[in-house]
């Protein structure tokens, strides 16, 4: 079974530029998550999708971050404009059941973003 795919693996940008990350979850997984992991900290949930609908985006800085999940499969996370404090690893995870039920999340390798 293929895992969660993310691209790019690394991205370096200057502050105030825009950046986008892409995630392809495990086939058939209904729920998709984006996390931000700052160096020295655990992952922090940014947004959770169930199919193509948003379940929880309470921790997403909506003034600069946006995410979508077209057709309930792939997802993109965008930052516009980026700030220095956005430097982090952005993790995508997916789980096979409908949000609100207990299950296990499978993580991708992440995209490491450096904002200069």
């Amino acid at each position, binding site marked *: 079974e293929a895992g969660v795919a993310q691209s790019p693996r690394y991205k370096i940008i200057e502050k105030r530029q825009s950046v986008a990350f892409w995630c392809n979850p495990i086939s058939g997984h209904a729920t998709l998550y984006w996390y931000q992991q700052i160096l020295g900290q655990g*992952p922090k949930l940014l947004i959770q999708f169930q199919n193509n609908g948003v379940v929880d985006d309470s921790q997403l800085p909506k003034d600069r971050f946006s995410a979508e999940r077209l057709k309930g499969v792939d997802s993109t996370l965008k930052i516009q404009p980026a700030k220095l404090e956005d430097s982090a690893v952005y993790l995508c995870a997916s789980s096979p059941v409908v949000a609100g039920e207990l299950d296990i999340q499978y993580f991708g390798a992440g995209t490491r973003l450096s904002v200069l």
Partner: protein
Amino acid sequence: AQSVSQHNHHVILSEAASLELGCNYSYGGTVNLFWYVQYPGQHLQLLLKYFSGDPLVKGIKGFEAEFIKSKFSFNLRKPSVQWSDTAEYFCAVMGPYNNNDMRFGAGTRLTVKP
């Protein structure tokens, strides 16, 4: 607010030593508990989980964890570590049914010296 605390930032052990990594959470409701591991250069993967039932759960690679409800703890243990256990370990807590907000601890880096 729900939070997860991992007591040790960095633990250094010799091979064959016993391991215990602490995890405490602050949440009043029913929770589901996880330990995830991230080996160098690899992605996060599930080590073990507790949803209900026997509070002593066994995971992969000889790891186990004990849920002590009265202490709000979910400590990870292994009787004899190997060099290949060198990794970062994250404790995570998921809220009750209808709330999939997963909160992670800051992580504990384990270094096992050969």
